């Protein structure tokens, strides 16, 4: 599955899409593929403060439970409620199945994340 070139990526396999001061976070195709069938996604509440590099939720698959790490800091403005009943969307379309939207505390933080070419190189080494 192709990685959207407009997204930013982390070494923990989250993606971030930035639109002005709003960020949207999900996990990458690589992440969903390593996790296997996802059965549960635990997300923060609207209003929660995320800190870059800290955990903000968990993804549970039939194989393992993994933490979600915030690529950037900010305040959660929306949570993808659909994932509570249809976690398989993360497997089926990981780059569209967003998890949280947030108001970025510091939009410059996103600049420090991996561009698509760097991320693709990183996962090639992981495999």
């Amino acid at each position, binding site marked *: 599955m192709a990685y959207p070139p407009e997204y930013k990526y982390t070494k923990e396999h989250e993606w971030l899409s930035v639109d002005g001061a709003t960020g949207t976070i999900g996990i990458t195709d690589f992440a969903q593929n390593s996790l296997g*069938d996802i*059965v*549960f996604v635990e997300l923060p509440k609207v209003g929660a403060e995320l800190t870059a590099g800290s955990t903000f939720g968990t993804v549970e698959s*039939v194989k*393992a439970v993994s933490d979600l790490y915030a690529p950037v800091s900010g305040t959660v403005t929306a949570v993808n409620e659909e994932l509570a009943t249809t976690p398989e969307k993360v497997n089926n379309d990981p780059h569209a199945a967003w998890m949280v939207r947030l108001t970025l505390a510091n939009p410059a933080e996103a600049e420090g994340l991996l561009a698509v070419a760097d991320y693709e190189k990183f996962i090639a080494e992981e495999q």
Partner: protein
Amino acid sequence: MSTKDIKKVNTHPSQNEGLIFEHSSPGKKAYRLRQLDVPAVDAASELGSALRTEAAALPEVSEVEIVRHFTRLSTWNYAVDHGMYPLGSCTMKYNPRVNEYVARLESIAGAHPYQSEASAQGALRIMKTLADALVEICGMDAITLQPAAGAHGEMTGILLMRAYLESKGNPRKKILIPDSAHGTNPATAAMVGYQVENLRSNANGMVDLAALEAQMNEDVAGLMLTNPNTLGIFDAQIGEIAEILHAKGGLLYMDGANMNALVAKARPGDFGVDMMHLNLHKTFSTPHGGGGPGSGPVACKAHLEPFLPKPVVAENADGSLRLDYDRPQSVGRVRAFFGNFGMHVRALAYIMANGPDGLRQTTEDAVLNANYLRKKLEGTFDLPYATPTMHETVFSDKLQNKQGIKTGDIAKRLIDYGFHPYTVSFPMVVHGAMMIEPTESEPLEELDLFVDAMKAIAAECESDPELVKNAPHTTRLSRLDETAAARKPILRWKPEQK
């Protein structure tokens, strides 16, 4: 499919059986009550509005139906009484029959937790004798027998850590957990209100001392360490680890799940551990499958003793025993009554039947068996850590990955060969882990059958990968839809579905 290499089984027993509710029809019964020999009680006047007006929908079946129901179900199962159960980290050892004999003695089986202390001296003596033996085996000073399982013991241990640090003025914030730890360790720390900080292993699969030095500070309450760890590697730097923690006022908790590698050979109390739990259902041969029940005593050093759950068994001046509730600093009760007493009986029977030399021999045999399998299977399967291992050994599926075969496939194929699978995909520090723990119970003949099976499967991975990918082939059901079971679980049977 070729069956020439499968020496242990041909097909698994397969007799259909429904739920016991589905056998029910009105009026059938499997009991006859005796004549009432106490004054009759009027339920309505005793219970008032709590009196049930409609009978509960309990199954009504005859004795032979009950016996057949459970016997048929038991044939779907695989137990350590069928053969080797090499589920790494779980120590699925044989449960000696002497344990069961003792636990069924009428005076023990019929004991009641509300008996008077004077009439329960025998039961208290069993608990005290077991407590003393376990304290000696661990090199500790005191113990609680209350916790009902390993994770419950962990939580009790970390509650002790918290209570102790609180008594010193500051419970602290974080607990360090190595990446090779048991999965329950971080969950335990979080349950007790600590933040979890991951501690990296070095290339030998041991704690990275420099990382520990760097991460240890006055915010860290302690370290939870499984030793030997989930790779089966004994961390020989344990003394230094303890010193680094103690120098900054932290405590060292040892997860004793792998004590089967240490009993009567090395004592955690002697290498700096402050407190630890034991799994009687692993190390001390009480039943593990089918819900045990488990038992997870927590042993500790003297400085943690005041915080142990109450009551503890204490000795009176005249040598009789009592339950001591007068423990003002105790973290409280962690379990109704006195823990899973039936397991205390079995563990004590095991310890006494073996004696010190027998326990030592057990430990040596457990390590020998695991290393025999390691040596025999090295080369056939990838061994990610060359460090010597103790009671279990971890391979990876790297060599079989070339055919698209994963650890889970090999494990499923092992069922066709008449063995319970090893532990799959754990520890997570090894990609595609195959974690094998034979325990001391296995005779050489069974170990060799297992080696033959594993080698035959490795050959099948090359010659007929699909055979392995679609295994098992001889069981009632083959691959179940684990995803649907997790996403859309059916949690209870409903009569209207009949």
